[in-house]
Structures are given as structure tokens and as C-alpha cells.
């Protein structure tokens, strides 16, 4: 354990790449052949707000077809709600379009649906794969990663399970979305490369035991996949509602490892509360950093090792939003029951928008962002980018600045700025912005 989040350099394995090479499928078992024919390449065209204007860029990943009606499982960082065009290349090299039907960045999983009308019209065929039980895997077991690394046509690589439950502190993907809070990862030495993202990790009988997600930059054969038992649950939820609603109480847990003596605890008892977000349900209910969480709704908690923490957080996440959770806390020598009402888990990444006439792209300050940065309210947008030579650039605005008000109206929602931009588009005239850089406020003018 160790307090603050260390910084890992991890690459998410989606890739901008073009080109294709033919290869023939190896057949081992019937199951494996079917699996091979269910693996697809996914080409995505998506909106990008980074550069001060709404742009489109492309990326490539992998995916696996799960059902005869064309449901595909892939990574959330391969296909996101920013995707405007998703093209799937089937194992027979035919292209067909697909749509995003569900997305969960917390587990880095996304669900697509192939355009079945098109499939019928063109008489296309494909097979589908089934999940195996990732809970039965053992270190040393042979597994295969299947995908389209660097856009190469379906490629199989072989390795073993290196670790069945690798833990990472929660972190953020390239777009700033949180990931990895609720699951541990399968680790494999099967070669996985950029473009493998979203492809399956399978056993010899062709059962999907993981979804390949990422690897370390500069390392050899350190690949990570989301276990199928996590994926199964996520897929079921995404099919129902397109997203997963989770509960949170706003605590940052820590492993108790080596601190049992200090807290006078028996081994394998309790989880450390490292931090409590201000204004969160736990904070409002009186939970404090340094408390030991002994029980959740009177069920014992064991957070001795970091690997055990995702399961505990997932227990909280699965509760209905707004439900009462009894946290049994040890504080000093006292043991107390604290009732906490859960709230919905949200990302710190707010809504994004582009304002062409100003050459400005922004992201709304979310409730979570405001809390994480100690801001007293949620007003304002964070500047993602400015286009050189456009009014925002000329006014001295740069990425990372916070715009808190426009024409003296606080930016309580993206609508405020959308409205001002619409007015400017109709009748371009000087527009007053209040801009914060490193806690210093400037008033600047966007002018035609």
C-alpha cells in the first residue's frame, strides 16, 4: 500500500493505423475456429475537441462478437460516445457498420451492435464466441490473444496467464475518463500490441476469459485484460440500459497491509479509509480519513491487500443509488455504525463542446472535478484547446484555463456558452469572458 496514487505509464492499445495483410486461420478445435471467426477489427471515426475546433480522427481496435444478432464486446477506449462512424471488419474481410449500444469507462468495456439489416441484405455471415470462467484460470495456463494489432488482419498470439488478479490504482485513460476502480486485471505474456485493444484473451477451447486492454510502454510481454467474469456482468447491464449506474459514498480506500498492529486489528479484518472526498455522502455522514471500515451492511470486509479493494468498492457500487449503507467503523478503540446514503457515481469528465467562431473547445466543470479541485461551485468550463489566430487565442486564452462567466453570466451549464456563441454567430460583437489562470482572474474580450 502507500497512500497517494503512483504514476504508471500505461498505454491504451487503440491505435491510428491503416493497412491490411491477409492471413489464414489456424484451426485447433471447433470452438477455437468459431472464436477466430468471431473476432473483428473495429475502425472508428470520432470527434476530437482537443485542438480548439471540432475535429475527427480515426483509430483502430479489436472486438469479439458475442451473439448471433451481432453484439460486439470491445474496449470503452476503442469506441466511445464520441464515435461518429464505426466500421467492423468481419473474419471474412467484409466490412459492415455498427453502432455503440453501451459504454462503461470504469471497466473499459463497450458494447456495439452490427447493422443486421445490412448483414441480411448482403448475406454476410459470422460466428460468435462464448465466455469462459475467468475465476478458474491459474497462473501458467496457456492463453491466446486474438485481435488486429496495428490493423493487421486477425492475429493470434500465444502466452500464459502471468497473474490472475493484478491490481492497479484507479487511473485515467487518454480522454481523462477514470478506469480500473472496480476490477483487477488478468496479466498475460501473450504478445499484445496497439490495435489489440478490445480483442479477446481465450483459452485453448476458444472460450473468452478476458478482453485485452493495455500494456506497459517499453516493457516486454506485460499485457493486461479485463476478466470475463467482470465483462459478463457489465455486458448484462449494458444490454439493459446502455450504461451502468453505480453507487458511491466518496471514500478512497487503502490496503491495511502492515498496519494491523497499529490499528490493533486481527489479520484480514477491515479496510483503511485513506481519504474522504469533501461534500461526499461519507464525509457528510461523518466518516473520516484514518477510519477502519470493518463491515458493510454487517458483512465483514477484508482489505488487507490492494488486490482485495476493487471487490469491496464493487460491493458498494452495486447498491441501488440512494440506498442506505451501514458502515461499521473502528475509530481508535471505538466501533461505530455510520449510516450513509449512497449517491450516483459520476466521472470527473464533463460535457464537451466546440465553438467554431471563437476557435475554442471546452469541457464543463463537473461535480466531481469541482470536489477534486476544492472549488466552491461547479460554474465554469475548462479550456481544452484554442485555434491559433481565432478570437479565443487573440484574447490570450490557452488550454487549461477556466472560463467562469460569459458576458457576466456565470457558466452554470454548457448551454450558457452555447447560447452566447449562437448570438455571436448571428451578430458578431465583443463578448466579455472571465478567465481564471492559476487562480488569477482576467477579463478578456472575444471580438470579431
Amino acid at each position: 500500500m502507500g497512500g497517494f496514487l503512483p504514476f504508471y505509464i500505461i498505454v491504451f492499445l487503440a491505435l491510428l493505423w491503416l493497412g491490411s495483410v491477409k492471413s489464414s486461420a489456424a484451426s485447433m478445435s471447433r470452438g477455437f475456429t468459431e472464436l477466430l471467426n468471431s473476432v473483428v477489427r473495429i475502425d472508428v471515426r470520432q470527434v476530437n475537441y482537443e485542438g480548439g475546433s471540432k475535429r475527427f480522427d480515426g483509430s483502430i481496435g479489436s472486438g469479439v462478437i458475442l451473439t448471433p444478432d451481432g453484439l460486439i464486446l470491445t474496449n470503452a477506449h476503442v469506441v466511445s460516445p464520441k464515435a461518429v462512424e464505426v466500421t467492423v471488419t468481419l473474419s471474412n474481410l467484409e466490412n459492415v457498420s455498427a453502432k455503440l449500444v453501451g459504454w462503461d469507462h470504469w471497466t473499459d468495456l463497450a458494447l456495439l451492435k452490427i447493422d443486421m439489416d445490412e448483414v441480411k441484405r448482403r448475406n454476410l455471415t459470422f460466428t460468435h464466441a462464448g465466455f469462459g470462467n475467468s475465476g478458474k484460470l491459474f497462473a501458467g495456463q496457456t492463453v491466446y490473444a486474438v485481435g488486429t494489432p496495428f490493423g493487421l488482419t486477425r492475429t493470434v498470439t500465444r502466452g500464459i496467464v502471468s497473474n490472475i488478479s493484478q491490481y492497479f490504482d484507479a487511473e485515467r485513460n487518454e480522454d481523462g475518463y477514470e478506469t480500473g476502480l472496480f476490477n483487477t486485471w488478468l496479466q498475460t505474456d501473450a504478445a499484445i500490441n496497439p490495435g489489440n485493444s478490445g480483442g479477446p484473451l481465450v483459452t485453448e477451447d476458444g472460450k473468452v476469459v478476458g478482453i485485452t486492454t493495455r500494456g506497459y510502454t517499453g516493457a516486454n510481454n506485460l499485457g493486461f485484460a479485463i476478466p470475463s467474469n467482470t465483462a459478463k456482468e457489465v455486458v448484462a447491464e449494458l444490454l439493459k440500459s446502455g450504461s451502468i449506474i453505480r453507487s458511491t459514498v466518496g471514500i478512497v480506500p487503502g490496503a491495511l497491509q502492515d498496519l494491523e498492529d497499529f490499528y490493533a486489528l486481527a489479520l484480514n479484518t477491515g479496510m483503511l479509509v485513506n481519504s474522504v472526498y469533501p461534500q461526499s455522502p461519507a464525509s457528510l455522514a461523518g466518516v473520516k480519513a484514518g477510519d477502519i471500515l470493518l463491515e458493510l451492511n454487517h458483512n465483514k470486509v477484508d482489505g488487507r491487500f490492494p488486490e482485495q479493494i476493487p471487490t469491496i468498492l464493487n460491493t458498494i457500487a452495486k447498491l441501488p443509488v440512494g440506498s442506505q449503507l451501514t458502515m461499521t467503523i473502528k475509530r481508535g478503540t471505538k466501533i461505530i455504525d455510520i449510516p450513509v446514503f449512497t449517491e450516483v457515481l459520476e466521472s470527473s469528465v464533463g460535457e464537451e463542446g466546440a465553438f467554431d467562431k471563437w476557435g475554442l473547445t471546452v469541457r464543463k466543470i463537473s461535480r466531481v472535478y469541482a470536489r477534486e479541485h476544492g472549488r466552491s461551485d461547479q460554474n465554469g468550463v475548462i479550456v481544452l484547446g484554442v485555434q491559433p489566430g481565432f478570437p479565443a487565442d487573440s484574447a490570450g486564452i490557452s488550454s487549461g484555463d477556466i472560463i467562469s462567466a460569459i458576458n457576466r453570466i456565470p457558466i452554470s451549464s454548457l448551454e450558457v456558452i452555447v447560447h452566447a456563441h449562437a448570438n455571436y454567430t448571428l451578430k458578431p460583437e465583443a463578448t466579455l469572458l472571465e478567465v481564471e489562470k492559476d487562480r488569477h482572474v482576467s477579463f478578456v474580450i472575444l471580438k470579431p
Partner: protein
Amino acid sequence: MKFKIWIGFFLTCLALKSVALSASLPAMWEERIKSVVAVDYITETEEERHVSTAYGVVIDTEGTIILPSAAIDVRVDPKRLHRFKAYSPGEAVGSDATYLGQDSYTGWHFVKVSKAMASHLVPITKWIAPSGTPTLGLADFAWGIGLRNKEEDFIPYLLQSHISIVESLPQQTAIAQQEVAGPGLPVFTKEGYFAGLAASSFAQTYLEFSKTDHAGAPVMLVDVEESSAILVSSEVIPMLGRRPSNVNGRPLAWLGAYGLQSLDREAATFLGQANQSSVVVSEVLEDSPAEKAGMKAHDIIIAVDSIALPRFRPDRVVTDFVERNVLIHKPGDVVQFTVLRGSNRVELKVTLGDEPKLIREAERKYFDRLGLTVREFVYADAVQRRTSVKVHTGVVVSYVKSNSPVDGAGLAENDWIKEIDGMPVDTFTEATSKLSAAESDTHRKEFVLLVSRGTQTAVLRVKLR
């Protein structure tokens, strides 16, 4: 023929002029170098010592010296400054001096030399023009003193130039064509009257290209030994009496308006303030005089004591102007601010307070075996962390020794320790007594800290054995 005569006449005039100067300048020089000294001192941190050198000017017969603001880092606790020594130009041996503190308004540091040394010095006031202070104007000749470094016994040398521009920054500042004195050293008129003090350098940056790496980018250099900017004598002479009464320069007038920013000219025009300067208040600090008087974040200050803020070039000089209008006062004085709030003009009467304890004034204690220095949590710490200033608990880590026990536990500088061994530490004394106990108990295996960093906290286990 006529042409030749004219040229001859002109050359003779030039010769006469330079002869007149060279006859008197060395004599003036000999007397005036008695008004300058070099000062060096040691800044002592947990494990290191740094020697710094500065140049100053003698202001009275008691041997009081003023050093420019940049001579001493304002963030350093004066208790960490040691062994002040003063050197007369050309002398290898210094004599002990005492640091008296900094005046917040002028920024000057005051130092006092020994009586024996003072008897050889001549105050700068001796060179004040009898008819009042001379003003440096465009094209005026000016000369000043530079001092070499310690290895060269601070040998004085002559610098001279002509004035190319005079600007309000916001003080009247004359800019010479070339370097005219070392920063903090005096500049004189051709008659030898005191004309001002050299400030830090102005637009004197040089690009140095590498001699070996031909493709490499040049390095920007700034001349810190000589300056062409002169704070004119009318800005200096009335301020010579501002000797601080204590080493921390207390009392310090305090407003509590944070992050003053000059208003952009386009925005000023938009808000109907095109003919003057304005200053945006980024935040109003909790419990400050500004807050008590009703000042709000994003208020735009347009006048102080009913005087509209003048225009400066560059615009940002106006924030200095406002700050100096506060610092010239004493706590308890009332200053009136006119602010623009939305479309309203609001008058605010602020009774200035005394600046809360600064970080440099915070108590601190070093624990060598544990490997850290903690200091008192002060007002500025609460501001920095966006927490209420009314709750001053815990201590701040101001130093972490590398490879020490606390370093191994992941503690970092600027972390805020809130609990030690599971018990809240409310005061500095409480924290240091707990840490002292851990430091001296050689049988102890570990202690546990609850530490806040950013908006998160963490429990850190410090292994001692």
C-alpha cells in the same frame, strides 16, 4: 575651408567638455565610493549553507545600509540568515554587520555595519543636491559605481551613460542607454549629485550561442551585476527613514484581495473604463479586511481614495500601484476603494488589518533521524489549500531528507500532517512534541501519519527500524 573650420571648432568643444569632466570625476569618485558597500551573508537550511552577495548604499552616519529587494529571498525566514559581513570597495576583509529586516513598501533590506566601519563611511545624503533633488531627463549624462566580486576584493569601477527614457513603473524610473551601476548602487549627475539607485536590469538580456553545439538553441542571459534602470532620487530620498523596527518588518498593512490582475485594455473599453487603469480582484480572502468591507471576487477596482487608477505602460504595473497604496499605510488606516461590480459602482471603506503570520515567520523544527522539518500551519497555507482559515490545525512538511524514514514512507514537501499515530495534532507544539518523542525513542519501530495532499488524504506508515 569654412567647413574645415567648423569641424575643428566642434572637435575642440568636445575635447574641452571631456577635459572638464575628467578633471573632476576621479575626485568625486574617491569621495563617493565611501557611500557604497558590498554585503555577504549565509542562508542556512537543514543540511546546506549558501553564501550570497549583494551591494548596498550607506544612508546615515550610524552605518545603516540599504540593499535592494532582490538581495535576500523574501520567502526565507530571517532566522536562517547568518554571518552578515560588510566590505568597503577594494577591501578583502569584511566587518560584522546586523540584518535589521525588510521594509515592505520599498522592498529594501536594512543592514547595520559596525561603529568602526561606519566611521569610514559617508552617507549618500551628503550628495543630495542643495537645490533639492535633481531630476534625470532625456539625454542627461549619468555615472555610477559598479563593484567586482569577492575574489577581486569588490574593486569599484566606473560606469557611465545617458538617459534614454523616463517612465512610471509605477515609480519614476530612468532608463540609461547602457549599464550605469550595479543593482542597489548609486547613480550621480555630472556635478556629482545623487541621482538615484540602480534597480534590477531593464531589457538587458543576451543570447548566448553554444560554441560546440552549432545546432543548439541559444541560452538567454540576464545581467545581474549591472543595471541600466535607475530609481530616481525623488523616489529614494523620502523613503530612507523607513527602517523596520523589527526583523520581520512588522506591522504589515493587509487588504486581503488575492490575485490582483490589471484589466485588459479591450475589456476596459468594453466596460467603459477606456481612459484609466483598472484591477480585477481574483479572490477575496476569508476573514480579511477586504471581505469585512464587502469586497467580492471579480470586483474591478477603478479608484483608490477617490483617485482613478492612472494608466501605465505596461498595464500590469497598475497592480503594483494598488499594492503600494496599501503598503504605505499602517494597520487600522482606512482606505477607500471604488469598484465596479456588474454595472454598479460600489464604494468600499476598508480598515486595513495586520498581515497574518507569513510562511517565513512560521515556527519550524527539524528532526534529523526522522528526516523532516515541520512548520506551523499559517493563514497562507489555508489559502493555498482552499480550506477555511479559521481552522489552523496540523503542521506542514517544509523539508524531507532524501532516503530518510519519512522519505521511504512517501512523505513529500508541502504535505499537511493532520494526525500523528492516530491522534489529531492541533498545534505546532503538539506535533513537535510527538515527533520529538519518536525521534528520541530508538526502540520504536514505526509511527503513522495522516497526511493531506491536494484534496486527498492518506495514511503513511513510517518505518524507523
